[in-house]
């Protein structure tokens, strides 16, 4: 069976992922009311599992269907009051949600895991709730076996495990007429060697005159001793494996979930679009056809005077441009999706990582309804996971320490989104220990990123640039650092690749806030083209706050910073030519392009303005890596490639000092 043949159509993947996401969301909702779950929520969770099963079965996705079936089963028992909703079970169900998503994107991804998990879901029969884990949960019994065990049998199996003995599964075949005697004799022979816990019907035997059984035997004796007891009778004898890991540890083994940067699968590449939006697009296309017809008619119109002909042509051209504008807008709209699925994923991630890290914390979200470009959602996932992981591992202190600092035991992480014009600002704040700037300073000196003098003079905010620089975030820096710095350069590069800007604000002991400012769409980035010493650069319009003409005069502050009054405020200015070390080639006028991120402002002095363009930006690629001041490139015409400025990096550089790294060969 080739995995390729298994691959379901992309519609399946996107619908399955959506359903799974909704299921995950409701499960988290359930958890909050675990003591007294709302029947309505329970019902909808059950229905979601059910429809997932149906969906998977329709598309021949047996693994997923089985898993969904097991989840549905368990949920049904919750619903009917037959099973209690426990954290361990919720864990299993949430684990299933993750698996659904992985399976949706790649049906061959986690086949074994799916099976194991389905078994574990099915095996959560009502058993006495104990403190700690149920050893039975670790027993690799087939779900159909597990399901038929009586409470007493389960109890005996538990006892076997508690004694440190093994559970063996033996398949035996006995003649139809003597099987009861044979079983009695076997039981007798087993005495002293082990215990026959359960006698289950086995698979149909080849012959009609024999009966097949599966026996579960608890025994501390070795295999030879057992075999001799069976006296050649067993067709098969094998120990039932006991898993080493805790069943509630969702990431016990196997590949990590897609959250940790898996291959973008089918679902990520497909998009569900409201049919009304498609209809509108179709209308636009119809209109364009009409214009095409008119223009064709014009080419035949020999009776028109050249002047009238030109007028007609111009009118049609304007109609064409107007309609293309509308079409573009609609297409951009169709690419927009809410952030909610991403936020939901972070919820599940936080829940799991907090458990792993042994920390108490909650993730609160706001602005999940904000819509951004589908591709941005995908590309944001990795950086966000990184930041969340950082916050949990290094930000939030252990509960005991927090109490000592007069904070609530449980940490709090807030993930929020807000749309501001054509920008979206995502903020991730934690109320943890904050960045240890003194330590950052130390490490920066150690690693030769800053000389001692400059490091001492640097303010905490100036040290932010160090935090995001590649030289800082190496493995050894991490182990040496109690604060942050795990791959923040990668995060920054990713964000810059999205024409975005990342900013950090942190106070020791109070917490840390990362703020990511992004354009709402990636399909095209609106850019202002500026001329500097004969070069052309693009500034993402989402970072441009103001454009003014400039007379070249500026004041100088005590520390040598150039300032210019703009609309009543003094803002720092920098000549882009000087910053980039370009020869001066003034072409007359000077302009001030005021750019900003968060509360920071900077006036960039440029020679010329060349209008706005919709740009399709490309990353500079891994070979060049982080080029200070540049986030990517875009083609603005045939073979004309311009570089797109990285406003965040320029702000860092001008407001905090020269870059730590210059474009490397």
């Amino acid at each position, binding site marked *: 069976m080739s995995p390729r043949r298994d691959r379901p159509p992309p519609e399946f993947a996107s619908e399955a992922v959506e359903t799974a996401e909704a299921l995950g969301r409701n499960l988290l909702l359930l958890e909050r009311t675990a003591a007294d779950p709302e029947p309505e929520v329970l019902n909808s969770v059950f229905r979601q599992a059910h429809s997932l099963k149906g969906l998977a079965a329709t598309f021949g996705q047996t693994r997923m269907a089985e898993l969904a079936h097991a989840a549905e089963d368990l949920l049904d028992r919750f619903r009917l009051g037959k099973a209690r909703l426990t954290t361990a079970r919720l864990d299993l169900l949430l684990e299933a949600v993750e698996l659904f998503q992985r399976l949706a994107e790649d049906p061959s991804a986690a086949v074994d895991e799916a099976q194991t998990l389905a078994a574990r879901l099915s095996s959560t029969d009502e058993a006495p709730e104990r403190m700690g884990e149920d050893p039975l949960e670790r027993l690799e019994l087939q779900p159909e076996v597990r399901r038929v065990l009586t409470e007493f049998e389960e109890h005996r199996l538990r006892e076997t495990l508690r004694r440190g003995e093994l559970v063996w599964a033996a398949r035996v075949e006995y003649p139809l007429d003597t099987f009861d005697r044979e079983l009695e004799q076997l039981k007798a022979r087993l005495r002293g060697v082990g215990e026959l816990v359960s006698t289950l019907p086995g698979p149909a035997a080849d012959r009609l005159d024999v009966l097949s059984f599966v026996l579960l035997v608890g025994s501390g004796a070795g295999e030879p001793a057992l075999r001799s007891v069976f006296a050649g009778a067993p067709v098969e004898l094998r120990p039932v494996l006991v898993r080493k890991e805790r069943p509630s540890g969702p990431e016990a083994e196997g590949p990590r979930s897609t959250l940790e940067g898996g291959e973008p699968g089918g679902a990520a590449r497909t998009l569900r679009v409201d049919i009304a939006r498609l209809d509108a697009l179709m209308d636009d296309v119809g209109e364009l056809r009409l214009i095409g017809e008119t223009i064709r008619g014009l080419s035949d119109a020999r009776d028109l005077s050249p002047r009238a002909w030109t007028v007609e042509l111009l009118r049609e051209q304007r109609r064409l441009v107007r309609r293309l504008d509308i079409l573009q807008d609609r297409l951009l709209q169709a690419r927009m999706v809410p952030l909610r699925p991403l936020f939901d994923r972070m919820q599940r991630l936080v829940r799991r990582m907090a458990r792993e890290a042994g920390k108490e914390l909650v993730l609160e979200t706001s602005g999940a309804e904000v819509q951004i470009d589908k591709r941005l959602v995908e590309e944001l996932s990795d950086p966000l996971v990184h930041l969340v992981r950082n916050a949990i591992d290094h930000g939030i202190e252990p509960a005991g320490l927090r109490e000592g600092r007069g904070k609530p035991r449980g940490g709090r992480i807030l993930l929020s989104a807000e749309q501001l014009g054509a920008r979206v600002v995502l903020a991730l704040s934690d109320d943890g220990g904050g960045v240890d700037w003194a330590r950052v300073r130390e490490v920066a000196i150690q690693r030769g990123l800053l000389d001692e003098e400059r490091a001492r003079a640097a303010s905490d905010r100036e040290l932010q640039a160090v935090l995001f620089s590649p030289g800082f975030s190496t493995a050894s820096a991490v182990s040496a650092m109690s604060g942050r710095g795990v791959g923040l350069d990668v995060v920054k590069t990713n964000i810059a690749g999205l024409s975005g800007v990342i900013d950090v604000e942190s106070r020791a002991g109070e917490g840390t806030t990362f703020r990511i400012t992004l354009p709402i769409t990636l399909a095209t980035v609106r850019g202002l083209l500026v001329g500097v010493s004969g070069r052309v650069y693009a500034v993402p319009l989402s970072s441009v706050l103001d454009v003014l003409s400039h007379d070249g005069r500026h004041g100088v502050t005590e520390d040598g910073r150039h300032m210019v009054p703009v609309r009543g405020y003094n803002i720092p200015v920098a000549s882009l030519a000087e910053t980039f070390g*370009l020869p001066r080639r003034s072409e007359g006028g000077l302009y001030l392009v005021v750019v900003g991120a968060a509360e920071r402002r900077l006036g960039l002095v440029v020679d010329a303005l060349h209008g706005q363009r919709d740009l399709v930006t490309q990353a500079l690629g891994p070979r*060049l890596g982080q080029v200070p001041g540049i986030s990517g490139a875009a083609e603005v015409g045939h*073979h004309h490639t311009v570089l797109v400025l990285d406003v965040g990096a320029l702000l860092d550089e001008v407001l905090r000092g020269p870059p730590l790294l210059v474009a490397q*060969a």
Partner: protein
Amino acid sequence: MSQEPRGLEELLARFRYRPDEESGGLAQIPTQTVEPDQEPRADELQLLTFGLGAGEYAVALGTVTEILRARTLTEIPRARPPLLGVLNLRGTITPVYDPSLRLGIPSTVPPCAGPDCAPPPRPARILVVRTALGPAGVWVDRVRGVQRVRTGGLERPRGGPTGGVIGLLRTAEGSRTVVDPEWLLR
């Protein structure tokens, strides 16, 4: 859509426009197909030979994915040699390097990025090399052709390969240094 100021097009044209790029669609980009007509024999090496400055060099043919006619590059601000600039290779930003530094010879690459550069000399080519970090370009003065040599015919440097020099090839016309193209990018 937006009214394009005339200035931009003129400006762009002044330092980027090249007549031979006009027809440069996809088909025209490789000015030379580097497909061997025969399967190479096991003990044979196929070399792409090129000239740079006064020297003659070669790289294994398999390492080169494409040969482009040299064109004006987009300048990377504050780039240090040997990085010359970048070009947009069908949507992939590709850095281009000057190999002279690595080869220890004076650079013959004219200014090729930014507003002050003249059109590159006609024979100049950019060899596109596939690397783990994506494609990269090597600027050469001229491409000579493809040469098959017996592996035994290659003089290996004494004491194993040094740097990126794989060996020396002596022919009637003179000697040719065979190098590892990735080494030229560093």
